[in-house]
């Protein structure tokens, strides 16, 4: 109501009202501030006055308080009577008790103030109370308290209010008069403008203009109004003009639209065709992916959505709906064991951006897990961040199964290979055993045949013996060939490529082969070409074997004419080769036969085989050996005219830096060797480490005969001690010894810096033993039983040969060509000159043999007494070990007994002991027991004979005592 009333008022009234209202408010505020300020000021003044007053009173009552003089205090306090507004005054002592008080008589109020107020001053109940501390010399002695009724302030308020109201009324009256005059200044122009507007709207005459009076806001408003009228006038005329143009413009636009429509239709058709093509490709592509049998996936790393295509249902069995849930859903399907692998690999690849290739297991809808292969690539945005991964998942269950099968097969194959290997090892061991077992009797056969051949025999007997010897040699050769060949086959044949003298090689071959050729009235020569080097780098033992094979062959197949060994140098591909051509004038080989001449078990023909003998292994082995030496074996031949076999091997040394070959520088030495018919003489001190007493004596007597001084060590320990105490010129070291074996003793000596040559003695005639010996630090190696010639050879090699030589008593029938057969034992080769050759195996003592070796009766006596003691002991030990079934110990003692018996010519016991030893080695305890019983029986009998006082007489008489004879003898003694 009020609002509308105010709005409807005229501008004149409004202006007047505004001015009036503003004046009233301002004035009222001003007066109020004035009055309130006056009051506050008056109160401040009052407080200040009262405090001063209290101060004066306090000062004046100071002494009274100090000396508790109430009278004086009352007197001072009564001075407040002079001030009407103070209605109560009081002085408290320092304990806060009232000291003196004053109260105005005419006041109606009762003031009970036992304790002084806390505040310095306070307005309460229309009164002002003021307190003031009384201090004497800095010490509080009391408090003054005054109470004022504020009557002065109240009267001042009434006065001020009256003045304010009067002022207000008079000012308002003046303001009304002024405002009603001044409002015309503003309302005047507005009213006149309103008049003009009304005229324009009533008459529609836009040419009318308002007149401007002032330059204020209203003035510019009038200007704007006039301008508006101008524009309305102009717009009117423009409208008329525009109406005329409109029609033509509509027509133009319609035509444009029609054209645009046509273009649009064309575009739509084109787009539709494009879409169809895309759809077609899409179908084709989907079909292709489906047909590939892969799952196609597209993982968006920003939204973590995976889009699948391809044979999802076929591989995993899920529908697309079931695969909702992005990468998380995919991870769920991965085998729990593969999940971390998958996750880690993907996280790694996201960083490296390498193509992904993973294999893991996934759960199919039917719950089964299959192996899948995931090959994918990461797609990065322009910032290089990985945003997508795109790839294929392939079912590789089949491939995995195949891999498993393959792995399984491989394991089986490995197992079979291992089995085969162990079988092969067993075979090698078997062959090694065979070698030992066969060679020993063979050596006996050949050795004794040799001895027999040297006897004065009837022509017929001589022929028989020769046949036995030849057959034996032949058989041994065959066995050696077979062993060599099997070693080559097993890859066990090692070559030792060292620098060796060509002259020594050729000389030894010449001296070896010449007698053989001479026997057949063939001319044998070694023909060297110019400029041959003196040294070549090869395995001279193998090369020698090859050449001897070929020359033997040539001699065998040549009835008359010659056999030449031609040696020449050849250069192939800038490498120096040495060529050995073995040329004969024999039966020759046809071209067809040449092709298979190197095959196994092949001979030229059946006829030849019968006529010439042989296994057919010779050339095959030779070829293998030549190949081992990195060389080549070839043949040129013409049937009936002869053949030439050629070995071509690398020289291995720089030919230009070698002195030329001069065979005759060394030839003399070889000649003297070949003509050797006497015992060599040495000088020096030799240490023999040997535990078996008889062996000690044997070796000692042998060495004494050739002029050497001998010291005996009982075992490895003693050997070491003795060798450290004094210097020896040579040490013979038995390998199998108690306490410390030969290998170990040698090692210790070498560690201690002893450089004395050491020759190992071993009963195990196996290839590889020599290696063990040299590894341990031995300089050389001799197989047991000791071969006298070889023993002397070794001594000669390692000792300085004494100038003197002594007429030898070696068997002149021994041919130098028989070197291969010379591995017979001392025992057998030095066998009895007389004696009955019957029942050789039955021998249990051979007097002549003993004498031959030992040389003097006293020594024999001594040796035999040692033999008896030692073997008694051994037999006891062996009995114990048999009871304890310790095959290793059985082998050890059997070995010891075997060696001892061989030395006294107890061949029967030797054989039994040997069988027992091998039973022990193969841990065949079953076989050991009967052998042991037999051994015990025989050995006890021999020991019983040898312990009798007159055994020497009997032995001298009998020469060779057999088991049978011993039985008879023992029976007769009883």
């Amino acid at each position, binding site marked *: 109501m009020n609002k509308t009333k105010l709005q409807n008022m005229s501008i004149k009234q409004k202006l007047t009202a505004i001015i009036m209202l503003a004046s009233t408010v301002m004035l009222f505020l001003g007066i109020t501030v004035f009055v309130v300020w006056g009051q506050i000021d008056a109160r401040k003044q009052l407080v200040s006055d009262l405090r001063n007053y209290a101060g004066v009173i306090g000062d004046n009552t100071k002494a009274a308080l100090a000396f508790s003089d109430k009278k*004086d205090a009352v007197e001072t306090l009564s001075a407040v009577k002079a001030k009407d507004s103070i209605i109560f005054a009081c002085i408290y002592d320092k304990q806060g008790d009232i000291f003196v008080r004053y109260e105005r008589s005419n006041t109606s109020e009762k003031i009970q103030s036992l304790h002084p107020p806390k505040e310095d001053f306070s307005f309460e109940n229309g009164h002002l109370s003021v307190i003031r501390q009384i201090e004497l010399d800095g*010490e509080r002695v009391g408090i003054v308290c005054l109470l004022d009724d504020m009557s002065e302030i109240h009267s001042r308020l009434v006065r001020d209010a009256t003045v304010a109201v009067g002022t207000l009324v008079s000012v308002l009256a003046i303001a009304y008069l002024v405002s009603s005059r001044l409002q015309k200044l503003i309302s005047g122009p507005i009213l006149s403008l309103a008049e003009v507007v009304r005229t324009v709207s009533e008459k529609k005459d836009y040419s009318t203009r308002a007149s401007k009076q002032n330059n204020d806001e209203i003035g510019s408003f009038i200007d704007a109004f006039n301008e508006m009228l101008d524009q309305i006038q102009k717009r009117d005329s423009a409208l008329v003009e525009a109406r005329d143009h409109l029609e033509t413009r509509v027509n133009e636009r319609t035509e444009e639209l029609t054209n645009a429509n046509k273009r649009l239709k064309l575009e739509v058709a084109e787009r539709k065709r494009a879409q169809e093509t895309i759809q077609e490709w899409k179908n084709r592509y989907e079909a292709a992916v489906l047909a590939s049998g892969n799952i196609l996936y597209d993982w968006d790393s920003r939204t973590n959505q995976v889009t699948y295509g391809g044979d999802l249902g076929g591989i995993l069995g899920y529908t697309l709906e079931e695969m909702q849930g992005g990468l998380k859903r995919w991870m769920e399907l991965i085998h729990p064991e593969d999940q971390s692998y998958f996750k880690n690999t993907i996280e790694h690849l996201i960083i490296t951006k390498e193509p992904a290739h993973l294999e893991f297991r996934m759960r199919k809808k039917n719950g089964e897990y299959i192996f899948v292969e995931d090959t994918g690539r990461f797609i990065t945005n322009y910032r290089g961040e990985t945003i997508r991964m795109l790839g294929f998942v392939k079912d590789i269950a089949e491939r995995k199964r195949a891999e498993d099968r393959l792995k399984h097969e491989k394991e089986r194959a490995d197992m079979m290979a291992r089995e085969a290997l162990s079988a092969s090892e067993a075979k090698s061991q078997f062959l090694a055993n065979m070698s030992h077992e066969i060679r020993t009797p063979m050596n006996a056969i050949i050795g004794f045949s040799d001895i027999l051949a040297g006897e004065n025999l009837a022509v017929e007997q001589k022929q028989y013996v020769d046949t036995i010897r030849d057959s034996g040699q032949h058989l041994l050769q065959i066995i050696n060939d077979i062993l060599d060949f099997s070693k080559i086959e097993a890859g066990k044949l090692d070559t030792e490529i060292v620098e060796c003298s060509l002259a020594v090689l050729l000389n030894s071959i010449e001296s070896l082969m010449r007698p053989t050729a001479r026997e057949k009235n063939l001319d044998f020569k070694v023909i060297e070409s110019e400029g041959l080097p003196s040294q070549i780098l090869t395995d001279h033992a193998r090369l020698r074997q090859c050449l001897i094979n070929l020359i033997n062959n040539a001699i065998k197949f040549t009835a008359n004419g010659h056999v030449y060994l031609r040696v020449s140098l050849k250069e192939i591909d800038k490498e120096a080769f040495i060529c050995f051509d073995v040329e004969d004038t024999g039966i020759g080989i046809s071209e067809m036969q040449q092709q298979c001449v190197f095959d196994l078990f092949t001979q030229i023909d059946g006829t030849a085989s019968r006529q010439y003998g042989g296994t057919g292994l010779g050339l095959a082995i030779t070829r293998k050996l030549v190949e081992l030496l990195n060389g080549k074996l070839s043949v040129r031949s013409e049937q009936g005219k002869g053949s030439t076999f050629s070995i071509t091997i690398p020289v291995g040394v720089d030919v230009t830096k070698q002195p030329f070959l001069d065979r005759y520088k060394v030839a003399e030495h070889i000649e003297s060797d070949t003509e050797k018919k006497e015992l060599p003489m040495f000088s020096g001190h030799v240490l023999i480490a040997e535990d078996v007493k008889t062996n000690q004596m044997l070796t000692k007597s042998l060495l004494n005969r050739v002029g050497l001084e001998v010291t005996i060590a009982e075992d490895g320990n003693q050997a070491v001690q003795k060798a450290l105490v004094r210097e020896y010129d040579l040490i013979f070291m038995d390998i199998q010894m108690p306490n410390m074996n030969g290998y170990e003793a040698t090692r210790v000596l070498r560690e201690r810096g002893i450089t004395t040559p050491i020759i190992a003695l071993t009963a195990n005639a196996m290839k590889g033993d020599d290696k063990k010996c040299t590894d341990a630090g031995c300089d050389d190696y001799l197989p047991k039983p000791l071969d006298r010639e070889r023993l002397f050879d070794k001594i000669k090699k390692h000792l300085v040969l004494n100038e003197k030589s002594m007429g030898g008593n070696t068997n002149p029938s021994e041919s130098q060509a028989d070197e291969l057969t010379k591995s017979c034992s001392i025992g057998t080769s030095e066998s009895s000159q007389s004696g009955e050759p019957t029942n050789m195996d039955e021998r249990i003592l051979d007097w002549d043999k003993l004498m031959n070796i030992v040389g003097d009766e006293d020594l024999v006596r001594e040796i035999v007494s040692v033999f008896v003691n030692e073997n008694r002991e051994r037999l006891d030990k062996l009995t114990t070990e048999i009871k304890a079934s310790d095959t290793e110990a059985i082998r050890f003692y059997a070995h010891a007994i075997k060696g001892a018996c061989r030395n006294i010519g107890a061949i029967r016991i030797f054989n039994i002991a040997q069988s027992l030893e091998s039973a022990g080695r193969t841990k065949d305890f079953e076989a050991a027991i009967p052998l042991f019983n037999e051994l015990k029986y025989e050995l006890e009998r021999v020991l019983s004979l040898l312990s009798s006082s007159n055994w020497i007489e009997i032995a001298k008489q009998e020469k060779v005592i057999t088991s049978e004879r011993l039985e008879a003898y023992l029976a007769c003694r009883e």
Partner: protein
Amino acid sequence: MRFGTYNLIVLVLIPVMFVNTVKAEPVQTQEYKIKAAFLYNFIKFVDWPDEKPTNEKTITIGIIGKNPFGKAFESVKDKQVKDKKVIIKQFQSLEESKLSNNQIEALRRCHVLFVCHSEKQQIRKIISTVKDHSVLTIADMPDFLESGGMIYFLKEDEKIRFEINNTAAKQERLKIRSKLLRLAKRVIGEEISNGVKK
């Protein structure tokens, strides 16, 4: 119940303590306690001349003769007056022995000298000894003022009051403030003030 018991104990104990205190302190002791406090307060209303040879930091109250104060000074012992420490010095009775020069010097250095009853016969001698050394002499013996003493304690209506010989004080260049003079029962040499007062 417990609270009640507690209150009861307090109510019973308070009067007992009060009675004990009153009985424990004889009237004589009470009187000298007030006098001791007055001695301190006098110092506050008296100004010594600048020439008074004195230790800057202490004000000495001498007590000569048989000391009646006992432990009366205990309660005011550590108080400072005019920012100085107050020292109480006991002097032997003049009757018993002659004072040594050192002792005389010490007497003269006192700011206040309270003369005990035992020195009744020696008053003049004492006053003459400290003459010209601005010593405020006080005693509670009648005729002390007449003998040349400055302040005399007396008892009126069981209250301790005092009289002042301002003439003697002026002679010794001691300035006694009017506030103190006004409280005195009688002031010699200040007739007007005295008149107004009584």
